[in-house]
């Protein structure tokens, strides 16, 4: 009769998997998640990247910008006075008085910048911001005109605006139910929407605040040149630049050397890759790809650990039978081949499923990205590199590790398989270990002994637990990242509205409390200076302990905690404040902890004295009631702002919760599987102790008590590791973009996760024990003895 040969061993492997179906199913889920997450992100981002690169190329996206001051320097003031007969201190006031004179200064600034570097082209970018209403609700708009060479606009749909027309962003239009042909009321004029527009320098619609990037509560807009010029709002201005193709790269050299540009009006140079509004997409692409890769590799690695443990277990259970089979002349290939083939096919099936679903999810995921980003959509196509990383790489890893493990074991001669030797090394190690723990209790020594029996496996166990806990903590730390930024700030204040005057205010303080706000550089770092007076009540200033710091402003600066984290400044440092043509040395006297952002607080009269030689100067009013738009140049309503953040939230949260869910699921699955396997590993001693008459509780304490202690120890150890790595991550982002991502490990979250963790270990132990109970003692002794 002809034997089925190798097919029989396939049957054997299949039965083995069927017996451990839950473990294998969960393993499959891990592989699925790994393939899915990677493919979904890589394919959507990849499509996005291809489309964006074309778009940036076509529209000639800026490589960098020079931000310049609104304040005119002394030579500019003289020139304005001589040429135009006007006394002006700021660009915006000049704009209102004399457009030609304003443009003259713009050109002069441009020439002065161009004179510094041989290899750049510049174009002035003017932006007019306003608040407008759609069906009674207020939204923000930034109006741009069409650029000549750098940052050309891109009409996604419809037409470029003619006279009396406007193009806005599609995201905003969709969210507000606007379509082409509808009209918008801006100030006193009415414009018809001619089309939907994108600007390469605004792939995030950041107008007021770097964290307000929601494209449904604010829009960019394009007017034709005549309408733009007529539009009666003083613009903000910066210079967009590109590196020209000449070989002289003096700008890059200057950046590399950190050369400081000594032009009084110059504020700072931002490279596009570090500029959130225009370059965030680059980091998004890189970050998403890195995240996808790390996350899926991480999961695949956890999967691998589990495969290793499952395999080691089968091998151990079938070591002797295989030894006999080898004696009878069955070749290694018959034993190894089926394992490789079945595991390979099984893994492939789940990875392929993950890949396929990921590929299907990629277009909607791209749409989700496009709820943030103002970028053209790309086509999700088959990308060989995604397929390779999502499937081939984990498969190669899986198969080679499986092969290595099987080979290592079946390399042994049949005699050694049938009668495994107790290695001397293990015995010696074991003894040394026991001596080291001699002064501990007997129970503890027993527990250590049971862990020391399989140090390799214990190492894998610890690795798995640490990885799982890390994944869990990371997912929790991302919760509420957004709430911890702006909303937190305003929650600490009693401000309802902030009204900003054109230039300095005159008698607007009838509406609220005087404040002087000014952007400036502090030791080269950008900061938002807020001049508060001791008597004001709407903007409290407190340290972590709740002590009032308002009184301390007379002595020096109070900085926000996040500014401290961003810059590394600390209490007692003396720093230099710098605006156009003026410098001031001040000491940092304290840190106000509730606030996130780059706020630096200063005594209002000192600030006014320094900037305007007028200690009563103020340019804004904080009020505890809703201010009227009429009385001010612009008004910010805290409520609207928060709503704006909240809507950003929904998208962001959908995103984060998906990741949190996946990471948490992975972590918990791993904890469960490791627990089950560890308990099963102890079948033999468990049965033995039972035969010896120990009761279940003692057995549990002896065999698993050590693992339980290890769980606690490594759970606790992972917390500082996680905290440290998150803070590293925070600093990294801060250096790149000058804002803090407040990842936070909250005790409450640690508690919740600990409870879930405990639950999984309990479930794991329970399920493993149930299986043990079904096993007769003799059988356990026979099968699992070593």
């Amino acid at each position, binding site marked *: 009769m002809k*034997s089925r040969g190798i097919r029989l*061993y396939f049957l054997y492997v299949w039965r083995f998997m069927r017996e451990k179906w839950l473990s294998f199913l969960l393993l499959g889920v891990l592989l699925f998640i790994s393939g899915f997450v990677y493919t979904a992100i890589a394919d959507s981002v990849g499509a996005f990247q291809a489309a964006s690169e074309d778009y940036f190329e076509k529209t000639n996206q800026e490589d960098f910008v020079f931000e310049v001051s609104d304040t005119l320097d002394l030579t500019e003031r003289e020139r304005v006075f001589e040429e135009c007969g006007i006394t002006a201190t700021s660009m915006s006031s000049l704009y209102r008085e004399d457009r030609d004179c304003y443009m003259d200064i713009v050109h002069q600034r441009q020439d002065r910048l161009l004179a510094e570097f041989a290899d750049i082209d510049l174009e002035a970018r003017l932006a007019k911001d306003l608040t407008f209403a759609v069906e009674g609700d207020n939204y923000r708009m930034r109006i741009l005109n069409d650029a000549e060479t750098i940052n050309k606009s891109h009409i996604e749909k419809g037409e470029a605006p003619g006279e009396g027309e406007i193009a806005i962003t599609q995201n905003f239009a969709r969210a507000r139910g606007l379509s082409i042909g509808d009209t918008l009321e801006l100030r006193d004029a009415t414009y018809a929407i001619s089309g939907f527009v994108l600007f390469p320098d605004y792939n995030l619609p950041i107008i007021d605040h770097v964290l307000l990037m929601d494209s449904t509560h604010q829009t960019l807009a394009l007017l034709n040149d005549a309408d733009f010029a007529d539009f009666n709002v003083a613009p903000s201005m910066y210079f967009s630049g590109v590196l020209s193709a000449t070989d002289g790269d003096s700008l890059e050299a200057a950046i590399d050397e950190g050369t400081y540009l000594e032009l009084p009006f110059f504020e700072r140079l931002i490279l596009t890759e570090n500029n959130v509004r225009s370059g965030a997409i680059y980091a998004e692409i890189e970050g998403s790809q890195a995240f996808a890769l790390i996350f899926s590799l991480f999961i695949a690695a956890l999967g691998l650990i589990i495969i290793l443990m499952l395999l080691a277990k089968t091998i151990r259970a079938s070591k002797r039978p295989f030894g006999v089979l080898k004696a009878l002349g069955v070749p290694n290939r018959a034993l190894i081949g089926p394992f490789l083939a079945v595991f390979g096919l099984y893994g492939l099936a789940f990875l392929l499923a993950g890949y396929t679903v990921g590929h299907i999810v990629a277009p909607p995921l791209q749409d989700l990205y496009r709820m943030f980003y103002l970028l053209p959509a790309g086509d999700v196509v088959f990308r060989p590199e995604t397929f390779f990383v999502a499937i081939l790489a984990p498969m190669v890893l899986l198969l080679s590790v499986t092969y290595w493990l099987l080979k290592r074991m079946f390399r042994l001669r049949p005699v050694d398989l049938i009668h495994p030797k107790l290695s001397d090394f293990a015995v010696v190690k074991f003894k040394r270990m026991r001596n080291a723990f001699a002064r501990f209790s007997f129970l503890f020594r027993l527990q250590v002994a049971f862990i020391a029996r399989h140090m390799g496996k214990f190492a894998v166990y610890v690795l798995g637990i640490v990885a799982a806990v890390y994944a869990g903590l990371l997912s929790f730390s991302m919760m509420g990242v957004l709430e911890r930024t702006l909303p937190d700030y305003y929650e600490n204040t009693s401000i309802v509205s902030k009204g900003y005057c054109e230039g300095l205010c005159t008698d607007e303080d009838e509406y609220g409390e005087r404040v002087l706000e000014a952007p400036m550089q502090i030791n080269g770092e950008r900061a938002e200076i807020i001049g508060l007076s001791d008597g004001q009540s709407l903007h409290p200033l407190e340290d972590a302990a709740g002590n009032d710091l308002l009184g301390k402003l007379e002595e020096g600066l109070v900085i926000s905690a996040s500014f401290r984290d961003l810059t590394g400044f600390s209490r007692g440092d003396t720093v230099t404040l710098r605006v156009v043509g003026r410098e001031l040395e001040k000491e940092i006297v304290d840190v106000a902890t509730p606030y996130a952002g780059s706020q630096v607080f200063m005594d209002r009269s000192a600030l006014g004295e320094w900037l305007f030689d007028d200690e009563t100067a103020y340019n804004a009013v904080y009020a505890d009631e809703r201010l009227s738009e009429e009385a001010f140049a612009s008004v910010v309503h805290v409520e609207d702002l928060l709503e704006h953040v909240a809507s950003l939230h929904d998208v962001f949260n959908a995103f984060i919760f998906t990741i949190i869910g996946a990471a948490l699921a992975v972590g918990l699955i791993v904890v469960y599987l490791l627990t089950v396997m560890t308990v099963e590993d102890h079948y033999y001693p468990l049965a033995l102790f039972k035969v010896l008459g120990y009761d279940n509780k003692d057995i549990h304490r002896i065999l698993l008590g050590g693992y339980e202690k290890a769980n606690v120890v490594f759970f606790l150890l992972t917390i500082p590791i996680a905290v440290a790595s998150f803070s590293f991550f925070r600093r990294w982002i801060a250096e790149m973009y000058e804002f803090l991502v407040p990842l936070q490990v909250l005790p409450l979250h640690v508690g919740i996760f600990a409870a879930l963790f405990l639950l999984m270990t309990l479930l794991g132990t329970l399920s493993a024990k149930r299986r043990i109970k079904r096993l007769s003692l003799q059988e356990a002794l026979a099968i699992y003895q070593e």
Partner: protein
Amino acid sequence: MSIALSSVWKVFTETKVKVEALKGVDLRIESGEFVVVLGPSGSGKSTLLNVTGGLDGVTEGEIRIADDVITAMSEKELMRFRRNRLGFVFQQYHLLSTLNVGENVETGAYGVKDSYPYSEVLRMVGLDGYEKKYPFELSGGEQQRVSIARALVKKPKILFCDEPTGALDEKTGKAILSLLKKLHEELSMTVVLVTHNASIAQIADRIIRMNSGYIVEDQRNEQKVSPDEIAWH
């Protein structure tokens, strides 16, 4: 098939103290003999069986089976040789727990062209109708029968048994011995059986006594008895 060992040494050096398990063993076993190797624990019986069956190499000396010098074979050649010619039965049954009896027997026929039908070999070992049962449903004696069937299914020329009754009680042990005797006669195989139990030796054609790595006595068994008659202890 005959077996010939000349000056076979087996020295274990991996351990802290060097162990000389076989010290220049010379031995010839003729085709069709039923030989029992008898000796106290640690005398080198298992080692002798392992090297003779090609499960382990020798330190010195030569072993021939029929015309083949198995001590000169590569691992691969040895494996093929064992597959086609040799059967093994050990004290522990070592069946695969997730395969049923028929399938466990089938594992022994891997890559062999001429094997017994599984039902027939099961009938030969007295397990007619057990094909679909799983190892955990069987008694120790029945499991040992399955392991014998697994060794026999490929029609080996030589059957090596290392303490095949070591884990069994008297009644079952005797039944297994009867089975081995019966199969030896019916299939005209060479059987080499290793035991420390002197009473078992009485069933052999020839008894080889070992002590600390030497063959100390080698004689025909003049008072051969049937397995049912031996005094078991």
